[in-house]
């Protein structure tokens, strides 16, 4: 028996923390505007990848969404072109919020698993005591 279950949950927590960070990044930039000639803010996606064997999960990479964006008529915006258009990202707020909840709950599930493993190892350390 080794203490590896705690480390495995740690990899899950790291992954979900990264996911939360990228969702925060997406939400923080959801109203960004750029000139129509520039790429729009690209949505951040975190790729989860199972480690071979019983070794938890790792971040396969951060993938970026489309830079196409959408043109919005906003003549007052300093980034507007001659026709009064700016480019905005097409990130969907609702899907970001559901992802946020999912990432948060997954983080909690991993942290509960740490506690369960800790209780177990602690009771193993009590064998033969007293």
């Amino acid at each position, binding site marked *: *028996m080794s203490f*590896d279950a705690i480390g495995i949950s740690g990899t899950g927590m790291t992954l979900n923390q990264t996911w939360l960070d990228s969702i925060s990044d997406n939400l923080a930039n959801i109203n960004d505007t750029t000139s129509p000639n520039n790429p729009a803010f690209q949505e951040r996606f975190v790729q989860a990848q199972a480690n071979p064997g019983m070794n938890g999960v790792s971040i396969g990479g951060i993938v970026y969404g489309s830079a196409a964006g959408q043109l919005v008529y906003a003549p007052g915006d300093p980034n507007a072109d001659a026709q009064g258009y700016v480019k905005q990202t097409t990130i969907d707020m609702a899907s970001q919020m559901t992802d946020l909840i999912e990432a948060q709950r997954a983080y909690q*599930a991993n942290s509960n*698993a740490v506690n369960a493993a800790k209780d*177990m190892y602690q009771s193993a350390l009590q064998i*033969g005591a*007293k």
Partner: protein
Amino acid sequence: MLESVTMNAMNSALDGYAAAQTAISNNIANINTPGYHAQVVDFASALEKSVAAHSGLLPDSAIAPTTSLDPTRLNGNNVSLEQETLAEVSNGLKFQAASQAMSQQFSEIRAAATVN
């Protein structure tokens, strides 16, 4: 007494529950990983047979994880958080039961050893 069937069986059970906990932690860590299949450790019937055969020992292969055949979600993942949480709780309690039983055995041995 130290190598009795009871002692061997509890030793095997502790190993099995620890392996199951590792599998559960791994499943929860991979709950959103596309294409991941849950790993399950089930050694109960193997241990039962081993105890019936007056051994109590289990080969490593008996506590090796097997892949769950449950239906997958759209992302090819079939980890169920409810199932894993329940397994985690019952697994932890069973581990405690086995570890306390083992402690009990040790205190009996200690009592026998210190009798005079």
